[in-house]
């Protein structure tokens, strides 16, 4: 693992509820999951984040037991579950498609698992009523999946996954099939519900804003490997690689030409860093988030000041995205509209500062 092994947050103190070590999965010659290892503490909400094809869904399926690992081990609640089939493990899962049973009504879907384990009719009814009240679907008990909206189906899937009171909740892109408004709303509800129940949760997503907003910690995957593990804030402000930095949000990245102490040289200019980074590999990048770029009067008196011109100004509601050009590479800056009070015109001269504390030196992808 190249990066981020030390950054395990609070998981190191309590004994982990779920621990994965050296997990590997091959399809033919393609390694889809490569020696993945991490730990999740009891009650934690961890997101597995990555682009499509990065192996995140396969990792979730390995943890569920839908796939058999070629190497490595999975321990859950102190027991090795690596060789167990799904029905012998302790988890509930929500799929991207929800996979509701079309021939069963809402109550029938939620009760399905309870029937499997032989719960009595009274137990089932009480539990189903409680779960549906919890997800706010009490009045839809007798409806069938085809009669429900996407958001309602998602809630049924969640109630169904929680019916057996699993120790581990697995969510496979549970929100990605929903409209933007519903998605944000359900995301917040999901987070609140998880907090209330305290169920250890692992959610796969490719949406970085979703991961940043709900997760206690995020596991960023790329090409079957873990790129970095950490809290949302840590990953956002201190990404371990250009990949992680770019994946979590917009990023200005300039090829680093040379590093002399705490001074970095990029094409056309030198920039001062807050502290001298450790030795960096060839092909490293000097990066800064567009929102951290300072423009206009506030740039006065700051270090790393550049004289630039506005090449493009894109109004985005709360903010304006400026593309600025000068002697060196173009810089993207997100500036609060309230602060600008207007949309700068193209060609306008503008002072720009890249605050030393916000500059990051990141290794490249190669």
């Amino acid at each position: 693992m190249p990066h981020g092994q030390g950054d395990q947050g609070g998981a190191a103190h309590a004994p982990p509820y779920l621990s994965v070590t050296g997990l590997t999965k091959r399809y033919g010659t393609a390694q889809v999951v490569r020696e993945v290892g991490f730990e999740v503490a009891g009650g934690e909400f961890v997101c597995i984040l990555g682009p499509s094809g990065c192996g995140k869904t396969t990792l979730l399926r390995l943890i569920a037991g839908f796939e058999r690992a070629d190497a490595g081990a999975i321990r859950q609640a102190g027991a090795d579950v690596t060789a167990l089939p799904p029905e012998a493990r302790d988890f509930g899962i929500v799929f991207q498609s929800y996979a509701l049973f079309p021939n069963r009504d809402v109550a029938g879907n939620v009760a399905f698992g309870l029937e499997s384990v032989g719960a009595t009719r009274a137990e089932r009814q009480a539990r189903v009523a409680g779960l549906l009240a919890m997800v706010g679907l009490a009045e839809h008990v007798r409806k069938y999946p085809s009669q429900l909206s996407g958001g309602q189906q998602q809630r049924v899937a969640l109630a169904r996954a929680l019916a057996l009171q699993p120790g581990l909740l697995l969510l496979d892109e549970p929100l990605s099939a929903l409209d933007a408004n519903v998605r944000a709303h359900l995301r917040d509800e999901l987070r609140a519900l998880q907090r209330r129940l305290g169920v250890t949760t692992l959610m796969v997503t490719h949406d970085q804003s979703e991961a940043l907003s709900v997760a206690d910690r995020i596991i960023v995957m790329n090409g079957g490997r873990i790129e970095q593990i950490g809290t949302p804030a840590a990953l956002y402000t201190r990404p371990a690689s250009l990949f992680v930095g770019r994946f979590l949000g917009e990023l200005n990245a300039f090829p680093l030409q040379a590093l002399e102490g705490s001074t970095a040289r990029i094409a056309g200019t030198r920039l001062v860093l807050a502290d001298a980074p450790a030795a960096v590999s060839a092909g490293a990048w000097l990066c800064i988030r567009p929102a951290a770029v300072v423009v206009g009067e506030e740039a006065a008196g700051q270090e790393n000041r550049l004289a630039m011109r506005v090449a493009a100004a894109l109004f985005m509601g709360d903010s304006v995205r400026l593309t600025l050009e000068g002697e060196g590479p173009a810089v993207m800056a997100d500036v609060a509209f309230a602060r600008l009070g207007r949309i700068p015109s193209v060609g306008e001269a503008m002072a720009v500062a890249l605050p030393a504390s916000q500059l990051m030196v990141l290794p490249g992808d190669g």
Partner: protein
Amino acid sequence: MAGRGMAGRRVLGHALPGMLLLLLVVGTALPLAALLGRAFVDRGGGFAGFDNFVRYATEPGLAVAAWNSFSLSALASGITILLAYPYAYALTRSAMPGRFAFRLVAMLPLLAPSLLPAFGMIYLFGNQGALRSWLLGAELYGEVGIVLASVFYALPHAVLLLSAGLAAGDGRLYEAAQALRAGPWRRFATVTLPSSRYAVVSATSVVFVLVFTDFGIPTVVGGSVNVLATDIYKLVIGRFDFEMGAVVGVLLLVPAVVAYGIDALARRTQRASLSGRSVPVAAGRMKVRDAALFVFCAAVAVAILGVIGMAVWGSLVRFWPYNLTLGLHNYSRLMADADEFRAVANSLWLAAGTAAAGTAMAALTGWLVARKVGAGWARGAVQALAMLPVAVPGLVLGLGYVFFFNNPANPLHGLQGTMALLVVCSVAHFYTVPHLMAVSALLRLDREIDLAAQSLRAGPVSAGRRIYLPYLAPVLVEMFGYFFVNAMTTVSALIFLFNAQTRTASIAVVNLAEGSRFGQAAAFAVVLMALSLVATCGQLLVRAAILRRQRWRVR
């Protein structure tokens, strides 16, 4: 719970695919292999290379049957498609009145053995026929009769395939053509015809094989014209020349396999040409066109009803053509004769047994293939073997059964001459379509449904009972109906296998026709058609009842 699920999964993952595979191998692959093998050995059992084929080609009178089969099937296919295309077009694309009724009439011949149209032809155009003069002096028995009756027999299949193809058109293309100022003829020539060409290829190959391998029609109206389907019977039953029979079997099999290959290719290409965003074509109203189509469809429908009506009339006539008093004479003779009565009972047993066993097995193989149960290679083999029978003519399969099960060295030798073997053969013969019905229905269920059930502690058996069975119920009824009606009317697969105890009504029809007892033969065919009609109506009613109960299907 988990323990039971795991045990269930072990059984299903290994034992079930193996068992189904074994059944399919015994039911289809091994009999076919026995037939193919027989074509390449001499009478003593030594390897003969192509000697048998050379003997077939050089012995006078044999090879001509191959040419007859080819040319007559090609001619009948051409005429069938020419009639079926406008008929299907009228059903799917016009606002012609009575479309539903026309559809029903076109499907009627499906319910009867292929012999029924042949009887109708005899009563209409035979030497004593009511419309004898319409043939302009030509003789019915021979080429004319084979082609006419074959067209009638194959028409519903062609109409079904073509109307499915025409119904799947893309409405956006028509709007685009209209926006580009293309008139109705130009739209037909540039959009309708090209987009339905795969359906035409598909229907042509299916019809060709139907006619090419049909046994009933040439037996009754073929006269002295030999075709492969009747030759194979004469060679095996009349001359006990099993090697020549096997050669003819190969000659029947190869074109059938090729034609189904073409059909499969055409279907795949057509599927690929339709995108998920296609908009259904709205049937437009065009007065002149619709009137013309109505006249055409009415003519075809009258012909269909006429031929069936003549067969029914023939069954009611005391002694055609000499005594035309109507009555149930032929029917009461059927009921009075123990042999004939038993044949009806045998048909019912065969149909019910085939439908029960076939539906159960096809549901399992469909489930295996669609839900990816068990090892990949086993699933692949099951799918391949399940697809095989559609390309194998019944006569070929039946002869393969003779070679395979008559072999004293075969441990299953004891099945020979039993009703059970007839059931096995019928299941194998009609296996592909119901298997595909189950596959396509189960493929429509989300793949993650299985995983969801597993995560909720339900093993495969439990999930099968609680999810797949209710989901599949209406399709199971359809599969049952398909097996039932086909087993009821089939002749070709059983003609080599029956004996006096297991003779079915459809075979009795052939026997009676061979003995020129057309009245009784027609009566039998009508009884079979009535039973098939009852079975079909029953199937529709049961299906409708299930759908009404399954409220979850309606949106």
